[in-house]
């Protein structure tokens, strides 16, 4: 069944678990790189379905972020709320200097699991929309 949402993530766990069930645009990279990828989509008209700063874990703490988007109708039809939200999210993320470029795997795994859980808390609503 084709859903009208798409998932963008830098979290391999999300891709492994849901990659074949939903459209998961997975690419490894930092939290901020993921936000910039989301911004490019938003500037091509995509609409944000989840908040880019979801979760209280700080952008410079967790390496992972997953965002739901609804595909848009091209750059001439911007969703301005989404534009403002992603721009503010990038400004906010920039306030936090990346502090853990090197992180033990068991901590990375915990962050990945929490990001997965945040993403799963939005799944029921997204699939019903």
């Amino acid at each position, binding site marked *: 069944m084709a859903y009208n949402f798409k998932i963008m993530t830098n979290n391999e766990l999300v891709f492994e678990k849901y990659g074949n069930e939903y459209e998961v645009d997975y690419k490894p990279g930092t939290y901020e790189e993921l936000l910039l990828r989301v911004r*490019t989509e938003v500037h091509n008209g995509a609409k944000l379905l989840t908040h880019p700063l979801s979760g209280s874990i700080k952008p410079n703490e967790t390496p992972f972020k997953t965002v739901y988007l609804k595909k848009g109708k091209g750059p001439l039809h911007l969703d301005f709320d989404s534009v*403002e939200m992603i*721009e*503010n999210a990038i400004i906010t993320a920039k306030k936090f200097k990346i502090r853990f470029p090197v992180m033990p795997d068991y901590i990375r795994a915990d962050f990945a699991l929490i990001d997965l859980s945040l993403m799963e808390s939005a799944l029921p609503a997204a699939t019903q929309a």
Partner: protein
Amino acid sequence: MGKIKVVHYVNQFFAGIGGEEKADQTPFKQDGTMPIGAQIEKAMQAINADVEIVGTVVCGDSYFNENLETAKAAVLDMIKSYEPDLFIAGPAFNAGRYGVACGTITTEVQEVLGIPVLTGMYKENPGADMYKNKVYVVPTKDSAAGARDAIKKMAPLAVKLATGAEIEASCVDNYMPNGIRKNFFETKRGSERAVEMMIKKLAGKEFVTEFPMPDFDRVDPNPAVKDMAHARVALVTSGGVVPKGNPDHIESSSASKYGEYSIAEFDDLTSETHETAHGGYDPVYCNQDSDRVLPVDVMREFEKAGRIGKLHEYFYTTTGNGTAVLNAVAFAKEFSQKLVAAGVDAVVLTST
């Protein structure tokens, strides 16, 4: 500890020379204090006996504002001659040109001599908005009647600045909020303050929010352009378009300077002639064709077709992000004067 030397700046009125008629007074210096300076010194010495106003520099408000560069340089030299540890200007209360002069000279002294500076004025004084984010400005009443109150607030902050003590939040050390958030302990907990604020707000009484939302003050729109066919239109951008090579090295975001460049001999911006200095977005598109950010090609066409009278020779450019950037406000104040002086009738501002 040795004596803490302070230099005080006043205008012609507070130097007892005269009012508006003496506003063209040229700068001069005088050892010791003027009457108001003596009051400030007394109040400071009550806190720290070592503090002394060793000299006063005087300049008329008209002379200062109309000969900005020469006046600044002259006043600066006189101040430097005393080798002060602290520089105080004013207080200017609601005198507009005096306030702007105080703000200008304190900022200059802070940047050039690198010593702590302090001034004071009424919050509606034009100098306040222009300088409260650059130097410490103590809020005063709107007339000299508020002198005692102003001195009572300026003296403790002056001593703190002179002795290098840590400056606390704006409402603790009595200076105008300058956009820098500082933590401090209130006497009541937050929920109690919230209830009190709610009661005031419901009763229509004045209350002070603890966090002002970003600058939402409105400026009334100017009347429309009546005759666009004869209007001089200028281009301005915060998208950071600069001549190839970024000659003035405008920084990639929240730049500390703006660029003024001529487009007199350009009908079209190309990848050879222009690029963007902005680092906040993907520069490829602008570097390929800067018209995508600064529409010189179309504006030139409209000029030739008589849709507009004249495309102004200079465009102004800097890099800012979505939120109000303190420097951008100051730049705009400055180049807007140049646009007015050049007879510009309208501005097209593009931002990324």
